[in-house]
């Protein structure tokens, strides 16, 4: 899931002040931001109280099913069009994809209420860790299911680097070195280590990614005409 965290409140207020907004409409997300406790119902109600205590009216709020789903978000904005009309701006408590989807669904100014930080594994309730950067060219088949691209702070495909000490990582000293873990797990599974992993093909991950199952294309540059 996409991990988000609250954004600097003074920056949100400055965004609103700059356009002279006196009232806002709040949008959350029923998926990732709800699980991350950053943009679910409870967080929206907290944000609402905070805005109101600081003299900004909240014309309404909505937590759609998935903020980044264009069709669903358009339905949400249509359903709330009366309240939206009253608002000078919309603040979205969802990831950057959700913010842009809302911005594409209304003519009002839209501002991000969260910062999007990573694609996260849910280790347990409320504990998230980054394990995959979606590089488009997965090497987990060669690395015993441990991603060096993401979990080695330097993203080295071949390691360990010279900073490893007693099996620990140079950069995050409380964690095991990714490459020591990979070697250990491969050995435990009786698997051979690949000699040298070749340089990564970054053309596999050129942005912006786009996939269109309708016309059979898998990836290409350029989004949906925006």
């Amino acid at each position, binding site marked *: 899931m996409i991990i988000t965290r609250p954004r600097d409140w003074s920056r949100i207020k400055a965004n609103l002040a700059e356009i002279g907004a006196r009232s806002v409409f709040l949008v959350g997300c029923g998926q990732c931001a709800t699980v991350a406790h950053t943009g679910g119902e409870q967080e929206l109600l907290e944000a609402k109280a905070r805005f109101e205590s600081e003299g900004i009216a909240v014309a309404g709020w909505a937590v759609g099913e998935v903020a980044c789903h264009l069709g669903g978000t358009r339905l949400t904005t249509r359903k709330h069009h009366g309240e939206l009309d009253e608002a000078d701006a919309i603040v979205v408590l969802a990831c950057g994809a959700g913010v842009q989807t809302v911005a594409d669904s209304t003519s009002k100014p839209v501002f991000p209420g969260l910062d999007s930080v990573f694609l996260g594994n849910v280790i347990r309730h409320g504990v998230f860790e980054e394990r995959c950067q979606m590089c488009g060219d997965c090497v987990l088949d060669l690395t015993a299911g441990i991603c060096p691209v993401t979990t080695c*702070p*330097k*993203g*080295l*495909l*071949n*390691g*360990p*680097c*010279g*900073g*490893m*000490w*007693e*099996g620990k990582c*140079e*950069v995050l000293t409380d964690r095991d*070195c990714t*490459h*020591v873990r990979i*070697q250990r797990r491969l050995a435990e599974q009786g698997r051979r*280590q690949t*000699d*040298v992993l*070749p*340089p*990564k093909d*970054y053309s596999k991950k050129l942005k912006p990614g786009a996939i269109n199952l309708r016309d059979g294309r898998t990836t290409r540059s350029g989004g949906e005409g925006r």
Partner: protein
Amino acid sequence: MSKLAEALGRGEFVVTGEVSPPLGTDVTAMLASVATLGPSCHALNVTDNQGATLHMASLAAARLVLDAGHEPIFQQTCRDRNRLALQSDLLAAWAIGLENLLVVTGDDPRGGDHPEAKGVFDLDSTQLLEVVSGMNEGRDMIGRELTGKTGFFAGAAAFPEAEPYEAQIVRAKRKVAAGARFVQTQAVFDMDKLARASRDLRAEGASVIAGILLLKSPRVVDFINNKLAGLMVPTHIEQRVRKATDPVSEAIELAREQVAACREVCDGVHIMPLGLDSAVAEILR
């Protein structure tokens, strides 16, 4: 041809030193260091933004060492440049007469003076050594023919004291297979561990140059143990430094003993004087 390569080829016990380019454009201090260390050394490493802190480019500073009449080892880290920049710097280095090359991964920017910087690490040091080997044969990374090939005497770093040993040595051997003809080690304190790594790396065909660090004060020991990744001063040596009435002469004596021990097990020493440049000649005497 590289004098360092020639000396190692002859079976001579080699000495390398280290100079750090300035933070700024005034190279007076660096050249003074070159003049002090140069006569004792076969070659001088010229570091590349060491510790992820800003310094003059190693490429230019290495050329200044050459102009001063000494042989540089151009250091290149994978941290600050992508594969295009690394390759073009390699071509530039060869064209301006730099023959020795040390390829290292590089410290993470988070530990340096620009912690906001993006660490590039487009290639790692094993991959970069493969690129160098290709350039020595006249082709770039994508296999295109170069107009004029390189002829680098390339080296890599190794870490004989880092455990688990197996994990480190496998990587070091791969660097040798990728084209490292010499290996410079992290500072060594345990001669048995050096002997073990030296045996394993020499068997792969690389010359082994052991790192010797001048522990000139308890402060240096603290710095290494607390701030430097991948290195720890063992207690018995730490005690020697702490108890010494004259730490500097104790450090010199310690280094002399280490150099003597290295002569038995490897092909040379890499001296990191940490400012005590003038003591290097004495250590080697």
